[in-house]
């Protein structure tokens, strides 16, 4: 996993729901490129043409609310999104993103505009808005999620471990 990420921010508001990330009519497929082609289709029709691989999606509160469709983080990841930052995430989206190896960080006080260049350190959770010269600290995530993310996703984690390591899961959150 690349722990240092740098990219341009694409900033959205609160409660970006999964229908806005990938409408339900496109979700019935195993072709990930189809998902990427329709990501944010109703919310921001120009996203696909504006974004460069490695860019960063920034949401407000409750990013990814609604359906359990894993196609939502898959669409963002396949389109080239390197990390999603938000004040906080809807629970299922947060799990799904980690499970498919798309980094997501809760950064409660992040301030950024679309186009700002952000540098994200996934190890330390430090987020630098290079355009503004400001720095923010992401919330720690449960250690099991860090382990899954480090493995590259839950498929790779289970290929490696075969099962959930109880000790890794029950550890307190890292500082």
């Amino acid at each position: 996993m690349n722990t240092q990420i740098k990219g341009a921010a694409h900033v959205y508001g609160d409660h970006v729901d999964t229908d806005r990330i990938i409408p339900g009519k496109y979700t019935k497929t195993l072709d990930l490129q189809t998902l990427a082609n329709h990501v944010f289709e109703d919310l921001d029709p120009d996203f696909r043409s504006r974004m460069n691989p490695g860019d960063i999606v920034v949401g407000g509160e409750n990013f990814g609310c609604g359906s359990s469709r894993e196609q939502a983080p898959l669409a963002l990841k396949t389109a080239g999104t390197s990390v999603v930052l938000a004040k906080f995430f809807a629970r299922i989206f947060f799990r799904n993103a980690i499970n498919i190896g798309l980094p997501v960080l809760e950064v409660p006080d992040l301030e950024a505009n679309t186009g700002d260049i952000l540098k994200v350190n996934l190890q330390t959770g430090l987020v630098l808005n290079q355009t503004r010269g400001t720095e923010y600290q992401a919330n720690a995530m449960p250690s099991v999620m860090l382990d899954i993310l480090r493995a590259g996703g839950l498929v790779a984690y289970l290929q490696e471990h075969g099962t959930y390591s109880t000790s890794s899961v029950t550890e307190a959150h890292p500082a």
Partner: protein
Amino acid sequence: MGQTITEKILSTHAGRAVHAGDMVVVDVDATMASDTTAPLAIQAFEQMGGDKLAQPERTFLVIDHAAPAPNERIGNLHELMRRFAKDQGCTLYDVGEGICHQLMVDNHHVHPGEIFIGADSHTCSYGALGAFATGVGSTDIAAIWRTGQTWLRVPESIKITIDGSLQAGVQAKDLTLFLVGQIGISGATYQAIEFCGPAVRSLSSGGRFTLANMAIEMGAKAGIVHPEGLTLSQPFTPIHPDEDAQYARSLHFDVSDLTPQVSIPGSPDKVFDLEQYEGTSVSYAFIGTCVNGRLEDLHTAARILDGKRVAPGVRLIIAPASRDIFLQALADGTVASLSRAGATFIPSGCGPCVGTHNGVPGDGETVISTANRNFTGRMGNPRAHVFLGAPSAVAAAAREGCITNPTRFL
């Protein structure tokens, strides 16, 4: 230290006493995936090196989100599910049998006190029975299929006590929409909700289902209805919270004066008294989905529409939540009554709600639906406007051609 219902269920399954904030690995009692989530789950299961399902006898696949298949791509995903179910010896509910959540409850695939994990966000519905039930995505389900387990952070709980009793003609859905409006779309994020109080105690089983179903529209991980008043066809051990259980919040509402509610287009938590929107023209009324496609919902619609006609310029589409419900509604004359009134019955499934097929609105249309979501684009067209209401409100709108207070017909 006292425990909430969620803490009790998770403790039983973790093999130790746990409280909010603890991380646990638990044995999962049963899982379910639909044709939106199962194909990706099957792929992930195989990539994980999965060979045999951990619990084939309690693994359920349901073809309901795009059923029957509207195109060859989806037809092939359905075939993938059929092959997998056959190879693995798990249960598959095929096209037309019903909506996953209705089938899990009606066919006794979930019981009080169990942990049920479904690859569909409305899995929280089974909190109506006192199960800890929550939705996850495809890869999480695949991992349970492989290991029999999952990890969870034990959530804090919010206790919502509903006092009073609903007025005649005001439905469980009105109460549910009211609560979604009060709590908000993210008000219970990372938390479980317990619903209790006199107004909850007197809800029908279907009403409890409606209430628990929309816990996810408040952001909750689970929504558990207290067991007082719960009747099931099989014997069960009710699980009550301890008197000294710790809650993140305790909220009280009195619904004695509650009037019919609607959620206005854009987000389920934009909830208002229906009377504020009376007279809004609608061209499409939809009754169905996992929140309100039950026999009692069809009966409500028939009470309003029997011997009448759907207003000119309005189409009424109805998808019973299961084939069994459809058969009961056929046998008791409800289907005939509603069909004579102009309703079109479509196969049991989720199509219109998720915008896959069987009733996608056109540009600029205003829809009123009994569903649980109305995010922009939800029914397949971002340029349509979707109101959510109770079955009574949808039937009344179909009859009058505009949003109408249904209590006058009940």
